[in-house]
């Protein structure tokens, strides 16, 4: 066989690292894909066996990325235990290898992965909540990461005037915006109330949350349906008037009532990093 080229070398080593299984299984699969074996690549020495050298990279690949994910899902680890988390994270990394240069993107699809791979509770004769709660926690924790990462309103003009609500809002001419870091999520369980070492599972209750930042501090706000719909509308268009119209249509709450509610809610929304004036 000819000496492998640089491209063939990288193809082989990448596959050995990323394939599922132990090192032997990875090498067998890599050989079937490339025709090359470890002996074609790894220089021998007396001190360390080539398999051990390769094992440093192979084992390190998953270990490193699982460690990165642990930093992003502490509540989930606390709830399901480290061993279970490692198993799921390992499966995720093996199934969906990273394609981004940014490790921030590593856990982005983890909640979706848990959702798509969840077992059928009825066939297993277990409480379906046990399967659903970790998915909800993952979704919540990912949303928190995104709220910390994206641009907030810290460098934007804030609604600071305390008499603003008393004199009313100029709905036509005031340009309300939502910051990029604002995350709106709908949960089936109140996972945001979980604390470290929580002995009790979260209450099963549909919950709408805004997760954002104010002065770089994480803010989590429970929302009523009209607040959720209004913020959702504002995320996709600049016009407060249109957002109120769309919210009214979705919630059947009259526009005038939404406007009146907004007057009393706007300070809270601002202090939780949900809205700012452009």
């Amino acid at each position: 066989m000819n000496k492998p080229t640089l491209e063939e070398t990288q193809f082989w080593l990448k596959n050995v690292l990323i394939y599922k299984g132990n090192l032997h299984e990875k090498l067998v699969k890599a050989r079937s894909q490339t025709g090359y074996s470890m002996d074609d690549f790894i220089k021998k020495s007396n001190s360390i066996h080539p398999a051990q050298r390769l094992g440093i990279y192979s084992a390190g690949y998953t270990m490193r990325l699982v460690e990165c994910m642990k930093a992003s899902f502490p509540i989930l680890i606390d709830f399901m235990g480290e061993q279970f988390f490692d198993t799921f994270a390992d499966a995720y990394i093996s199934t969906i290898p990273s394609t981004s240069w940014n490790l921030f993107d590593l856990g982005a699809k983890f909640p979706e992965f848990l959702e798509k791979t969840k077992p059928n509770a009825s066939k297993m004769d277990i409480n379906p909540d046990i399967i659903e709660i970790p998915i909800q926690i993952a979704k919540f924790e990912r949303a928190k990461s995104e709220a910390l990462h994206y641009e907030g309103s810290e460098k934007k003009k804030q609604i600071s005037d305390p008499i603003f609500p008393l004199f009313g809002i100029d709905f036509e001419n005031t340009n309300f915006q939502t910051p990029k870091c604002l995350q709106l999520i709908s949960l089936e369980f109140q996972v945001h109330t979980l604390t470290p070492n929580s002995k009790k599972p979260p209450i099963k209750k549909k919950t709408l949350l805004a997760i954002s930042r104010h002065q770089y501090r994480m803010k989590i706000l429970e929302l009523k349906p009209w607040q959720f719909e209004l913020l959702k509308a504002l995320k996709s268009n600049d016009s407060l008037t249109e957002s109120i119209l769309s919210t009214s249509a979705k919630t059947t709450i009259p526009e005038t009532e939404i406007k009146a509610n907004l007057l009393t809610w706007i300070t809270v929304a601002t202090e939780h990093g949900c809205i700012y004036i452009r």
Partner: protein
Amino acid sequence: MLKHHKNEPRLGLKNLGLGVGLRSEHFPYLMKNNDPMVDWFEIISENFMNNHGYARHVLDKLKKTRPIVMHGVSMNIGSTDPLNTTYLKALKELAEYVQPEWISDHLCWTGFAGKNTHDLLPLPLTEESLKHVSKRVLEVQDYLKRPLVLENPSTYLEFKQSTITEWEFLSALVEKTNCGLLLDVNNVFVSATNHGFSAENYIQNIPIENVVQIHIAGPTDYGNFLIDTHDQPVPTPVWKLYKLAQELTGGVSTLLEWDANIPEYPELVKELKKAKEAVLGNIPINKIQKQENFSIASNPLNFKLVANNE
């Protein structure tokens, strides 16, 4: 090839003194105290690219009073994949904001066929890879409009196809591209131990006039190999290599890398300041930390997203 700095030692880049890596664990200290007690900071570029959270706010404060260097881990300079233009654009945007003294990355590859291993993988050191890497370094330097500085990585395997030593490869790369070198003496020590070559000979045979920075760090001994864990104080053999490198260069910027089991900020600075004594010949006495169970290599990308209230 970038024409400027061709005849200037160290590409005209100055000795910044003693610096540390900017880590989220130290944000509370750095935001409370006006004196960071170091001369400069190194940021991991990827941790700040497209990141508009609290970390950028901390960086805003620090860059007003201290020089910043951008050190990347995902440029993938050695890969046969095309250069990632999205990555380079984001890197350049960050550089426009940070105004770094220089931009560095590693002589390695991290991904292939669009998959990223997030590891610094070794290259076979051949004429083919030299030609390939040189071409890409020139392209990156043209795009960034500045020299690229490349670090020697720790390696745990060597390829049978290699026909050039790593120090010869670096010398040829510098000859072809006039890139800068980030000499990581800990990595030289780790690789030398793992592959059985002389670390002193390595340092004595790289193009020393292109070395712009030195990294020091603490590895871990797993019995028959060392791993570049960056989670320990700098051991005596690495301090000795550091002294040698500073003697040969006449003095360049020093950066203490510590990526896991990170000590409190004042302790980190105390470790860094030992560099001054090491240069004077007062080599700190410190053993290499031993472990039995294999752990992962350093992971500077494990940059915890923090809020101001953590």
